[in-house]
């Protein structure tokens, strides 16, 4: 039986145990998952916003995943500390939906797309390949990462589907 670690809004977890799974729920937020399948270290953050505007480091660890820039930096450092090789770290991500739309069907609140674009930019800057993603559209997703297989499972209660990436 896998132990499932639930990541709250703005939260972040790092694991080094193959018997653990990381789980979160994202709508316009993005679940970014970094992993090294050789050393069995993985990390997931529930990113709400691209950048922290005040430039101050978060003191409270509970919401260290809130901002993409801060989360990525914390994830990479934490994974290396737990034995991950930075050259082997890969990424998967899901979420970034545009939940609300007005009648002209254009996106009203585009934070989801901004999160996706910004995360891709930071991953590139850090030389981390994004191997797969399930992003955009207009619905919320449950996201579960299995460290043993490296599979990210995405389910939507509204659209009634399950996919793996």
């Amino acid at each position, binding site marked *: 039986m896998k132990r499932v670690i639930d990541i709250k*809004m703005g939260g972040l977890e790092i694991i080094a145990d193959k018997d653990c799974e990381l789980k979160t729920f994202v*709508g*316009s*937020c993005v679940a970014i998952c970094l992993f090294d399948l050789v050393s069995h270290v993985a990390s997931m953050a529930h990113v709400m916003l691209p950048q922290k505007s005040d430039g101050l480091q978060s003191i409270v660890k509970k*919401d260290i995943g*809130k901002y993409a820039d801060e989360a990525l930096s914390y994830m990479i450092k934490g994974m290396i500390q737990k034995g991950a090789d930075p050259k082997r770290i890969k990424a998967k991500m899901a979420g970034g939906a545009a939940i*609300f739309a*007005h009648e002209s069907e254009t996106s009203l609140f585009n934070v*989801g797309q901004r999160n996706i674009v910004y995360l891709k930019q930071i991953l590139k800057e850090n030389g981390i390949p994004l191997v797969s993603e399930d992003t955009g559209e207009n619905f919320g997703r449950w996201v579960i990462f299995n460290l043993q297989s490296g599979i990210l499972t995405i389910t939507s209660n509204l659209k009634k589907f399950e996919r793996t990436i």
Partner: protein
Amino acid sequence: MSTICNDLQKLNSILDSFIVQKTIPALATMLGEPVLHFLKNTQEIPIVNLDVIISNLEEMNAMSAVYVKCDGDLHMGALLYLPENKSKMLASQLLGRSISDELEILTTSSISEIGNILTASIINAISLDTGYKICSSVPGYAVEFFRTLLEAVVSDFGHESDTLIVSHVEFYGVTSNISICMLLIQNPSEVKKFMM
């Protein structure tokens, strides 16, 4: 927590008076029936703990929802929602005719309009009382589970603070039994603006 309990209680009663003054008459006129309301509470919740306001009922039903964001001298988000299967009933009542599946757009428009009018009624009452100039966005419409709606609103709103002030209001049509919920969301720094 940055906002003291006393301030939250005051904010709760101030919002309640605004709702009684402007929102209830507006909704009663639209529905053509008396309307009751219940402002459940106003609480400060850490963003990481927002799950606490998601009830089992809301997890099981897709909701029709409208989000309106208010900016200017005061910042506030208003999320109006009701179960999707009730939204067509509400739209029919508003339009005074039954709505077929092909006319789904009418449901979307009328629910959006309700969100727009209810939010406007609250900001109108706030403006009259405080003199603040407040503008509201176009209403954003969605059909989703409450968890998704809440997450989208919070990510749109949670730039400044790690906690949010959330006021939860329920409106009931006395004759039709239609129930509409509304969350009013603010950053903690906004609370003092109501106390001046």
